[in-house]
């Protein structure tokens, strides 16, 4: 199948499904004898992405695969389409999520130790329901606490391809090297 034949099929499939599709999944759209190779599909996707330069959408590769999405700079206009403002997440929610993302796998107790406050059970529940986090195992400690890790859906939501694309953390200075302090009453 030629590149020119492949392009509209993949484009239509991506628009029809409305969520990221992996290259392997795209391959299964074709019957055995006309199945394009992974490289052919990637070539067609590259061409589709290039076609988007002057358009309001772009082809983006996320953790679960490729998808067309609106360009971020158009947001000031797009957000007026909806009456209600989308709700942003609370700091407690984001801090809990950030800890799971950057320190995974992590237990609830470890999250609490760093944040200095108890983890709200609803936050973990919401994260689980959104399928942004999952239990990947249990720490061999009394009570066998669950170990949490993030999912591909989490990366998709934050427009990331892999965990390596997360913003880098602040560097930590060794606290042991702190000069002594004199205290004046």
């Amino acid at each position: 199948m030629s590149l020119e034949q492949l392009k509209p099929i993949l484009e239509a499939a991506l628009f029809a499904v409305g969520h990221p599709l992996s290259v392997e999944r795209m391959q299964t759209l074709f019957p055995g004898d006309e199945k394009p190779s992974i490289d052919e599909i990637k070539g067609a996707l590259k061409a589709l992405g290039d076609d988007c330069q002057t358009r309001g959408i772009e082809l983006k590769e996320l953790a679960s695969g490729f998808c067309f999405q609106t360009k971020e700079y158009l947001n000031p206009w797009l957000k007026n389409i909806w009456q209600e403002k989308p709700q942003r997440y609370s700091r407690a929610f984001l801090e809990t999520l950030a800890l799971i993302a950057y320190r995974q796998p992590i237990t609830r107790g470890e999250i609490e130790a760093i944040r200095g406050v108890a983890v709200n059970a609803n936050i973990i529940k919401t994260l689980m329901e959104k399928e942004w986090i999952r239990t990947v195992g249990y720490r061999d400690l009394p009570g066998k606490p669950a170990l949490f890790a993030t999912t591909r859906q989490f990366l998709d939501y934050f427009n990331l391809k892999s965990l390596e694309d997360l913003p880098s953390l602040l560097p930590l200075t060794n606290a042991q090297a702190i000069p002594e302090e004199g205290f004046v009453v």
Partner: protein
Amino acid sequence: MNELVINAKVQGEPFTKWPKDLYIPPDALEVLLDTFEGPLDLLLYLIKQQNLDILNISIASVAQQYLEYIQLMKELRFELAAEYLLMAAMLAEIKSRLLLPRPIEADGEEIDLRSELISKLQAYEQIKKAAQDLDKLPQQGIDVFWAIAECHAFELNKIESEIDVSVLLNAFKAVLERAELNTSHVIAREVLSVRERMSHILDLLRGDNKICFSAFFKVSEGRMGLVVTFIAILELVKQSLIELIQEDLLTVLQVKLV
């Protein structure tokens, strides 16, 4: 606003005003709990307010400030914020240690509360920043939107058809035949009720869409158990709670919730 009477004293001076940079209304506890994510966050705020690097802070003076805040909250229902009190106790301990003359290297195993606190503050600051950065990333459904286009309706590949009772009986017969092969096992008789089995089947179906008919039958339960399961399935079908599906002739029989 109500007139407030404050009896706190700071360095001998009566403390008559709330700190200017942070308005604390009379029901301040909720505000405190809402504004800060915890004691580390409040402490970090106090440090940043002095524009100091965490490594260079004078724990003593920050502790002083922190305790003042806590003092201001004294008459409020502070038992709700135990974490803040715990931090206050820790700061007070560090402060009191600094005030006391230190024995010269008694055993070298003294826990350095101060560097421990600083490590905690750093770890918290790091994650606080990470959470802010995470929030700045383009979010699907808020900052970017996945494109979707309607496609023409088409017939789904799988057509679910009504099935004949004989298919069901044949499937059950196959299960029973398999059980015969297992009869040499000595099976402790279990009390099995149809009701219980019905709930169990519904439970199993809740997560999955479809489960293979034969998957419900555990040969190890013996003939009696198999019959209970079969009756339970028939009863559920009769009550229109579940549905039996065969996608094509000679393919496996599947069960799903209606």
